[in-house]
C-alpha cells in the first residue's frame, strides 16, 4: 500500500510524520518526493548504498544533416530552439524533454543526449529504507524527478511518500499513485486556508484522504470546524511539543523526542490500512 503525506502549507510536519511512521513499519520504503528541498535523509542513520542520476533527454542537432528549415523551432512549445545565422540553437534550460523536435525533423538531424537534472539516492536504515529524490538547484523539471522516484515504490512492502508542500504540479505528481493521503495541517489561519486548497485538489483528483492537525493547541478551532463541515476525517491531533521541536531540529525523530506518541501513530496506520491491518 502507498501512503502519501502531503499538505497545502509548508512546515506543518509532513517529513516529521512520514519519518516517524516509517520507523513503525519494518521493511517500509520512504520516498522523499520534496525534490526541491528533500529533508528526510537528515533523520536517517544509515549509509547511502546507491545514487543514480536523473536525466532528461535534450536535443542535439547534427549540423551536417540539418537543412535549417526551422520545423523544430516552429514545433517547440517552449521556445527552447532558435534558428539564427543558418544554425539551430538549443536552449537546454527551457527544454522539457518532450522529443517533439526530433520527431518533426524532416532530415532526422536531431538525436538526444541525457541532461542531468537531479538524482535518486537510496539510504538504508535499520528497519526501513529511504529513497530520496533531489532536483539540481536551478533546474525546473521537478515533476520528472518525482516520477522517476515513484517508480522506486516498494513492490513487496509498504511505501510512504513524503510530498512537497503546495497543491500544484509537484504535489499532484507525488500523490498520483497513493492509495491514501494524509494532509498535515496546523490549527492557524494560514493552515486552514492552505488545507482548503489541498482538499479541493484532492477532490479534483478523486483521491482518498484524511487530516492530521499538528501543533493543534497553537491556534483555534477553525480547522476542526472546517473538517466537520466538509466531512473530512481527522485522524489525529498532535499538540505543540517543545521536545518534538528540539528533537526534529537536531535530526532526531518525533518519537525520539516524545515516545508517548507511538500508540497514536500506530492507530493512524491502522486507520489508513497501512501495515496490512484493515
Amino acid at each position, binding site marked *: 500500500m502507498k501512503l502519501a503525506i502531503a499538505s497545502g502549507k509548508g512546515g506543518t510536519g509532513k517529513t516529521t510524520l512520514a519519518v516517524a511512521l516509517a520507523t513503525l513499519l519494518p521493511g517500509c520504503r520512504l520516498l522523499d518526493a520534496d525534490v526541491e528541498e528533500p529533508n528526510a535523509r537528515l533523520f536517517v542513520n544509515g549509509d547511502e548504498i546507491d545514487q543514480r542520476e536523473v536525466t532528461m533527454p535534450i536535443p542535439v542537432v547534427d549540423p551536417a544533416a540539418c537543412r535549417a528549415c526551422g520545423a523544430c523551432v516552429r514545433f517547440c512549445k517552449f*521556445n527552447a530552439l*532558435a534558428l539564427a*545565422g543558418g544554425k539551430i540553437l538549443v536552449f537546454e534550460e527551457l527544454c522539457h524533454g518532450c522529443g517533439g523536435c526530433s520527431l518533426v525533423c524532416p532530415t532526422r538531424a536531431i538525436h538526444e543526449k541525457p541532461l542531468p537534472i537531479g538524482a535518486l539516492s537510496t539510504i538504508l536504515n535499520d528497519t526501513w529504507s529511504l529513497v530520496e529524490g533531489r532536483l539540481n538547484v536551478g533546474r525546473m523539471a521537478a515533476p520528472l524527478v518525482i516520477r522517476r522516484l515513484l517508480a522506486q515504490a516498494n513492490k513487496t512492502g509498504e511505501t510512504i511518500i513524503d510530498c512537497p508542500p503546495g497543491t500544484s504540479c509537484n504535489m499532484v505528481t507525488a500523490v498520483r499513485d497513493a492509495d491514501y493521503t494524509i494532509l498535515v495541517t496546523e490549527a492557524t489561519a494560514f493552515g486552514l486556508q492552505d488545507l482548503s486548497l489541498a482538499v479541493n485538489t484532492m477532490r479534483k483528483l478523486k483521491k482518498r484522504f484524511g487530516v492530521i492537525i499538528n501543533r493543534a493547541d497553537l491556534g483555534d478551532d477553525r480547522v476542526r470546524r472546517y473538517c466537520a463541515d466538509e466531512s473530512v476525517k481527522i485522524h489525529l491531533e498532535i499538540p505543540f511539543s517543545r521536545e518534538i521541536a528540539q528533537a526534529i531540529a537536531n535530526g532526531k525523530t518525533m518519537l525520539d523526542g516524545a515516545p508517548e506518541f507511538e500508540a497514536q501513530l500506530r492507530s493512524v496506520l491502522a486507520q489508513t490500512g497501512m501495515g496490512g491491518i484493515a
Partner: protein
Amino acid sequence: MKIAISARSASLESNFDTRFGRAPLFVIYDTDSKEVSSCNNTQNLQAAQGAGIQTAQNVANAGAQAVVSGHCGPKAFTVLTAAGVTVYQAKAATVQDVIRQFENGELVAMNSADVEGHWV
C-alpha cells in the same frame, strides 16, 4: 543598414523601451534610405519563457543588422550573435534620440549579455 530599436509604439517620437524580450515592438530604421518601419513583438509578451529568444529571431528575420535596447539577456544575446546582429545598449527617451546617438557613433556594442535571463 537596418537597425531595430525596442519601442513602445511605432514612431520616431515613441518612447524607447528598455526591455528587449518584452518590448511591444521594434522600430526598424534604415540608415541608408532613412525609411522607418516597424516590427510587431506583441506575440512574445505572453510567452511563458523564451521571449528573448523569440524576439531575437523576430528582429533578425526583419533584416536588422543591429539592435538597440536597454538590456539584453544571455539567451537573446546568443541568438542575436549567431544571426550576426550587433547589440547596442542605450539610455534615451525616444526612438529618435536613439537614432541620433547611433548615427553620432555614441553607442557602444555589447560583448555579452548585461543582465541575467529571467521570466519578468
